[in-house]
């Protein structure tokens, strides 16, 4: 019975659902602050100390707003997709070690890296469906752009993710994170940089934010959403950003592991984890601020002509590095 309670606590409170949502709000706040400072603005200041509660306040505000479903939508899909994509992203987070172990203890298995990447793909497909079911020209263009961009960038992202797997000689994320005595970002700096770029496209951030280029297609796939469905759609996007950052942390920055000082190691692991995630969020947001938006054809050119060959090259060099490391160890 006590074991069950631990499981419930871990799944719902820490490091499960509540922790993930709170971390998402924190990352959202950091993002908004950085973007504002980069643009010579203040950013949120009003709600809570330095406006830290603003993302939460925005979420609650949207929950309270009127929820409208346009008459011509494919109603069931339209209604379900925001929640489904949100839960998919949160579910994917459960397979990533946060406080030294996975959310559900011992749920890690050989090959969960592929599983998590697949979950991300499915969740992204739900985002596409949300736009496609809206029956609005802007949403549909936005949705097709999500899919076009996603199809392009998911492949290099997966290829790049296998580099660390080769070094750790394992396809389980916790193995990869645990085996990094030296962070892989130092061993494979080129793969790290390429992974961040591919992630930038995956997360639809500048210079790759074509799916919701507001001056061309209004709100993209979320144009027709309002009220609590919009709240969940936006939360899903934010969780996706955190998930992307967490993937970088697990694959390249030694996951939650770092020096442990006094007290319980879980506390230090969580602290290192949060700090590393925030570091990655800062990097991606910085990139977002310094670039203009590309056109969809330019995005695809960058993908197929630049990122794709480079990621294959990076995988080959990673294999070389892995071979060399094994020699050294052997």
């Amino acid at each position, binding site marked *: 019975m006590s074991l069950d309670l631990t499981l419930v606590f871990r799944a719902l409170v820490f490091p499960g659902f509540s922790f993930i949502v709170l971390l998402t709000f924190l990352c959202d706040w950091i993002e908004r602050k950085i*973007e504002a400072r980069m643009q010579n603005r203040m950013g949120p200041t009003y709600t809570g100390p330095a406006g830290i509660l603003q993302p939460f306040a925005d979420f609650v505000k949207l929950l309270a707003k009127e929820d409208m479903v346009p008459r011509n939508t494919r109603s069931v899909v339209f209604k379900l997709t925001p929640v489904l994509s949100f839960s998919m992203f949160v579910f994917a987070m459960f397979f990533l070690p946060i406080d030294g172990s996975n959310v559900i203890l011992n749920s890690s298995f050989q090959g969960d890296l592929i599983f998590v990447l697949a979950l991300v793909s499915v969740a992204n497909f739900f985002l596409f469906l949300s736009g496609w079911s809206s029956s609005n020209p802007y949403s549909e263009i936005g949705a097709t752009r999500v899919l076009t961009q996603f199809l392009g960038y998911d492949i290099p992202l997966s290829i790049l993710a296998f580099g660390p797997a080769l070094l750790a000689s394992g396809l389980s994320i916790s193995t990869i994170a645990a085996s990094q005595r030296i962070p892989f970002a130092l061993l494979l700096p080129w793969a790290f940089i390429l992974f961040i770029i591919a992630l930038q496209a995956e997360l639809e951030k500048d210079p790759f934010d*074509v799916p919701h280029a507001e*001056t061309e297609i209004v709100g993209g796939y979320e144009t027709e959403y309002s009220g609590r469905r919009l709240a969940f759609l936006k939360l899903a996007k934010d969780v996706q950003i955190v998930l992307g950052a967490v993937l970088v942390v697990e694959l390249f920055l030694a996951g939650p592991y770092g020096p442990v000082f006094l007290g319980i190691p879980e506390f230090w692991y969580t602290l290192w984890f949060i700090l590393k995630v925030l570091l990655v969020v800062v990097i991606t947001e910085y990139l977002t601020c310094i670039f*203009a938006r*590309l056109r969809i*054809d330019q995005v695809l050119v960058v993908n197929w002509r630049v990122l794709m060959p480079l990621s294959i090259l990076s995988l080959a060099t990673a294999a070389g590095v892995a071979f060399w490391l094994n020699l050294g160890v052997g």
Partner: protein
Amino acid sequence: MTSVEQEILTTLSKELGEKMLQTPLSQLEKVSVRVNAGIHRDALKILLDKDESAGVSAITGVDLGETIEVMYHVRTHGTIATIRTRVPKKDPRIKTITDILPGANFHEREVADLFGLTFEGHPYPGRLILSEDWPKNLFPLRKDAEIADIENKKENITALDESKQSSDEGVLTTVIMGPQHPALIEPEKFSLKVDGEIVKEVKPRIGYVHRGIEKAAEKRTYLQDVYLVERICGICNACHATCFCQAVEAIMGTEAPVRAKYLRTIVLELNRIQSHMLLLGHAGLEIGYEPFFQYMWRDREIAMDTMESLTGNRVIASFVTIGGVRRDLKEERIPKIKAGLATLKRRMVFYKNLLESDPTLKMRTKGVGVLERQDALKLCVVGPVARGSDVKMDVRKDEPYAAYDKIPFKMISYTEGDSWTRLMVRLDEINESIDILNFALDNLPTGPYRVRVPRIVPAGEAINRVEAPRGELFYYVKSNGTAYPERVKMRTPTFANILSFVHIAEGGNIADVPASFVSLDPCFSCTDR
């Protein structure tokens, strides 16, 4: 009349010979000839043969009672030559000139809309300014137009759906941009026929913010009109006021004092700086480069604050008036203004460096929306759009007004004609404007800043042009000897430039439409009046 104008007049009278009618002494200071309807095409061809960069600046209609006078104001050799012709009101028909100069398209449609003229052979006749349900036989700018009880006379129009009309065109889909669209801050409609991601055809429809200002100006006194024309456009309000006041002063035969001329120059250049900075920031927003937008608009505040300390108002200056300006510039304010200008100058170096070096910015603007010089001339574009396409045209140089003849400055022009050069023209012009302002502040003459003028203006007519931030602004004012003008015609820069959007969007990528559109710096409140 200058020697250039004399030469144009001699050429016209020699070539036209008998066909030129002897006009009862025109009070226009510039070249003005009267011909019979039909001959206006020959006169235009003569002017075009002499000067390849000649273009239609505006077409004005005036109701003369039994007849309607149509004036073709042709911009040639840096001045305006007016070809006048009269058509009877009973049978108001005249041959189009769009086959000679495609840029006359909108000008003719506007006159057709407001005066009920039929331009024979016009490729796209139809409503341009007035709404579709406007009564068929009511032409608002005719003097006998009965506009009382207009609500009940409206036409019953139900089918406005354009997507139905284009159903037989196979693969082309119609994407309608506007009247409400996030890339358009003001309402106008552009129907884009799209084949995949490529734009095949653009149909503009303007008039969504038509307020009938030309008609309203006839019902107000000259002094009230100054306030009215300022409200045509918030951004370039001082240009409108200056242009109108200079035209009225020309009819009156008065001249503003020298100090007033310098002060006008200062407020005009401040207008230019803030307008260009607004556009550059807006362009950053359109291509998804928000930091550029935020930085630019923060620095724009310097220009706004200067405007406020000079005129008392941030946006609508209410500064220029007939006979001078309404406030004097106090000596002790000058150092603060100059400090602000020095900051702006430093920032412009930074922005120029940014525009020239940022790779994503260049990917989105270089080679996008190219307007070749030849097309720019054909479409009669004005201002930075023309100068970006290597058409060297600037009213400040061609026909100096205010104090521009005493202030040294460069005319900026680029050759490529793409969106990037149009932005660069504006950036460089801000630099020039800062220099002009510094010069004007250093050499500000002493003396009165306005002269008192009578309320009643003698009968006459005048044309005036001002280089507004968006290009040449054209005013035609006709007085009938009372306190109320007989006719006030304004041709705003965007009205002349909007046709070029159709040209540069066709054949381009749909994602480039906002980026190339914003580089024209469209202002629809100006366009519609």
